[in-house]
């Protein structure tokens, strides 16, 4: 628990900043909705007729004029990009920063096993993601209440649950990568999150590339799919959970044998 506590303590400023930033943007977007609602019929038609662009952001199956449709598209982008980047960031730096900042030598010459280090750091990653997501959901629900809209709570929670699973997958894959690299891999983490995001967009646009949606975690966290059927895609999310589990095993395996770079 000592390492877990230290990681949480050291990551708290970053967690607060990311949580505030994402929450604030969601809040602002929802505040705009009442104003836009009146003009929505025209806007919806416009958005629905932008071809690939419409498909790319899932606006073909969501009605932008309804609160859930609006929330799905907005939330999908803010929470998708923001949450994924944050997850990538904390995942990639959990192990690698110890080596980058030369603190691994200090930490690992204490009587702690590598397994325990990986375990506590993984918990720290999950814990931070849980805090971020709970805070964001609460801000969202409060924002709905402020603008007087009654969203489909079940769909909202399901959507955010999918985002959470997606962030855990991205965070853990980056975590596993960081067990292999010698120095901080911030670029790798952010790059990975961005590529996964674009995989999903490409998968949305082209039917030939639909398989990409089975690779990227954004595939099962697609607001337009979740809100229209009100359930998660079993296959995609199973693949996601499988990848997450593989990443965890790989991280444990690799880190317990790793030569620490000093």
């Amino acid at each position, binding site marked *: 628990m*000592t*390492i877990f506590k230290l990681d949480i303590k050291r990551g708290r400023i970053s967690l607060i900043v990311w949580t505030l930033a994402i929450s604030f943007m969601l809040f602002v977007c929802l505040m705009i909705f009442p104003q836009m609602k009146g003009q929505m019929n025209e806007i919806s038609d416009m958005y629905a007729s932008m071809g690939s662009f419409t498909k790319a952001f899932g606006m073909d199956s969501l009605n932008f004029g309804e609160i859930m449709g609006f929330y799905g598209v907005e939330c999908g982008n803010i929470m998708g990009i923001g949450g994924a980047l944050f997850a990538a960031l904390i995942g990639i730096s959990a192990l690698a920063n110890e080596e980058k900042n030369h*603190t691994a030598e*200090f930490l*690992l*010459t204490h009587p702690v096993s590598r397994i325990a280090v990986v375990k506590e750091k993984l918990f720290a990653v999950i814990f931070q993601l849980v805090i971020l997501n709970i805070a964001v959901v609460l801000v969202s629900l409060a924002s709905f209440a402020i603008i007087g809209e009654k969203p489909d709570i079940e769909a909202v929670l399901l959507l955010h649950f999918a985002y959470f699973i997606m962030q855990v997958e991205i965070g853990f894959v980056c975590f596993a990568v960081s067990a292999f690299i010698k120095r901080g891999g911030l670029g790798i983490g952010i790059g990975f999150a961005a590529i996964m995001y674009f995989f999903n967009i490409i998968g949305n646009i082209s039917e030939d590339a639909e398989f990409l949606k089975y690779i990227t975690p954004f595939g099962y966290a697609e607001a337009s799919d979740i809100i229209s059927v009100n359930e998660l895609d079993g296959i995609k999310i199973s693949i996601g959970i499988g990848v997450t589990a593989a990443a965890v095993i790989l991280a444990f395996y690799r880190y317990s044998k790793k030569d*620490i770079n*000093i």
Partner: protein
Amino acid sequence: MSEAVIEAVNLTKYYGKSRGIIDLNLKVREGDIFGFIGPNGAGKSTTIRILLGLISATSGSGTVFGRDIVKDKERILEDIGYMPSEAMFYSGMKVWDIIKFSAELHKKHRAVEDSLREARDICERLELDTSKKSDELSLGNRKKVSVVCAMQHKPKLYILDEPTSGLDPLMQKEFFSLIRERNKEGATIFLSSHILSEIQRYCNYAAIIREGKIIVRDSVEALSKTSAKRVNLHGNMNDIKGIINHMEGVKGIQILQDSAAFLFGGDINILLKELSGIRVSDVSITEPDLDEIFMHYYGSGVKDNDNI
């Protein structure tokens, strides 16, 4: 013979193709203050990091307190106090929080309060300001934090990688008096250094490592007999050449126009007596650097006394 605290058998480490250490054998007995000497890059840190489980050996094996360094790593580390050559700590953390974190990582076998009580004493003796943040620390102060973290849990074995670099002479003295106290209480000390005089002054056994291989292991007493001085003389060259030629233990002679330099490995009293009989305008007798000693004394004929 008392029991071996550290034992390395044919330890070999290659980083890819580059050499770390080769077939290294080492035995440190309980209660020793053991010096591990060698120039930079000889493999001192590599050996230490293998013993601590930070890196794994390519081949060979090792035990600490009779336990396998791979299988029983965590158990071994409970009884080790380690000081890295260049200590780095978590940025933004206060010194006291770092010390507390270190104590908490030892809490399974030693109450945190006990460790911290010890830590307070050591901080006082080393005049370490614990309210500073780690980023503000000088190299010397980082060393002091390392000392506290290595000592507060009262380990049975201290592994110190170039412990005095960065400490001012006064602190070096205080540091070694701390180390000696712990040694008197029964702890074993294993310290690496490239400063020969330091090893001579404080250690009872030593091993010299060069290019990844141990080239000599012996008591410091025995090693000191072969430890040479670099002598520089200015003055009457005929006189100087005269004494150089008939003294024993002179090696590596370099003669310039009005000066001569050589390594002197014989009895220092004889040298002084000879010098007093001739006219010199300037004289300096200094520690030779290790490379010189290696070249002239351990270069070709590798001695290997197995009595350690």
